[in-house]
């Protein structure tokens, strides 16, 4: 009998196959994702001022950006968090719910869409800020939504980094999967 617990759409596609839960959690992918996310946090600690980074500021972590990178790497460095974020969350999500190409593709496209949406929103601040409810400013994290839009800068290079991160993650997942099949 079909379980009365139903999850529709994409999640259903990823979680179930003919009503059966076959996918096992891939702890390796989860660990890679978490490690990359930690790397991203470390990047912020080393190269961004806590004054301009909400989570550092609110955790009471004081940091002054160090300037050891040659200027030619600064452009790459500024977009690295966009790459790391999309890559990390694709890995963690895939590790949890996907094990086939179709699942990987859906996960990659989902995180690509989310990250691109937030990047583009920084360029639409004059449209979006007026519709942010005032009560956001009294809630932890949501209080930063306005400043995120107001002070964040839309950057085509960030969009590129998100796209590259998504593609690299997809290739990593599929090649890794193919390697496993050969092992079998």
């Amino acid at each position, binding site marked *: 009998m079909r379980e009365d617990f139903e999850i529709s759409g994409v999640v259903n596609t990823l979680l179930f196959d003919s009503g059966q*839960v076959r996918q096992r959690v891939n702890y390796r992918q989860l660990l890679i994702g978490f490690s990359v996310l930690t790397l991203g946090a470390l990047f912020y600690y080393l190269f961004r001022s806590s004054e301009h980074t909400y989570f550092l500021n609110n955790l009471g972590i004081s940091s002054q950006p160090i300037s050891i990178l040659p200027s030619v790497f600064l452009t790459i460095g500024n977009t690295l968090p966009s790459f790391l974020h999309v890559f990390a969350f694709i890995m963690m999500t895939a590790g949890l719910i996907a094990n086939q190409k179709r699942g990987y593709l859906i996960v990659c496209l989902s995180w690509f869409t989310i990250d691109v949406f937030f990047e583009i929103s920084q360029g639409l601040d004059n449209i979006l800020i007026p519709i942010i409810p005032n009560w956001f400013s009294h809630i932890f994290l949501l209080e930063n939504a306005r400043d995120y839009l107001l002070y964040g800068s839309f950057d085509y290079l960030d969009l590129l980094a998100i796209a590259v991160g998504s593609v690299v993650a997809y290739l990593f997942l599929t090649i890794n999967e193919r390697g496993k099949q050969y092992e079998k």
Partner: protein
Amino acid sequence: MKNKFVALIKFFSLAVIAVLGIVTIIASNDGGSGHGTVDTTDTAGLWTGTLTDGENNTYSIGGITSTDGQFRLIIDEGECIGMQVAGTFSMEGDTGSGDFTGYAGGLCTFNNLETVISGTVEFTVNGDTLSGTFVSQDDSGTFSLTYDPQVETPLTLADLEGTWIAEEGDFSEIAILIDGGFMGNYVPYNCNVAGSISIIDPDWSITNVTVTKLNCDNENMNGTYTGLGVLVFDEESQSEVFAIIVSSSTLSNFGFFTPAP
């Protein structure tokens, strides 16, 4: 039953990852992209023009931009006189950008009824005109300013020494000493005022100004205010005018002074 339990665990784990992903985007940034190289000398000076808000209200404004990247704009007439915007900016070529804090003034508050707001500006400089847009927490709009070259004049503290009569604003007359220190009163709350003036760049008639208000009837008024001052010549009154525009974290003041006869 086991499948159902595992699916639930996975579903909630997925939800946690999704929320974490979005939270880390929002929490990682409140302007970390930074601004370009500061090269603001070409943009420094006195600017006058108009600002149009999101509701198509137009205000007459005057502004000072300093060689070290500070700016102060103030509504200089009408019921909102004294409403000011203070911030810093940087330039990349002919394009500038910056962050600002806005202070309500006159009979006006901001659209969200707050008295202090923050926002960003972006603008381009084309010859003697500067035009751009601003976005704040409650509004957005445009501004257009024309350059006035008269502050491209060398200034020393000796030029400011003496007694200055208040023409606009809530300060009384002030007495400026040769070292830039000055004293006076803030009339509405009977505050004693002590301040200091320092030259930012001796080739320009623009100064840093610090004002400390003491012993005010309303204790909330006590405190230190910082900002800019500018010495200009007013064609209408055929007199020098020393204007100061200052603010604390929550309050702002301005004063237009002319030399005592």
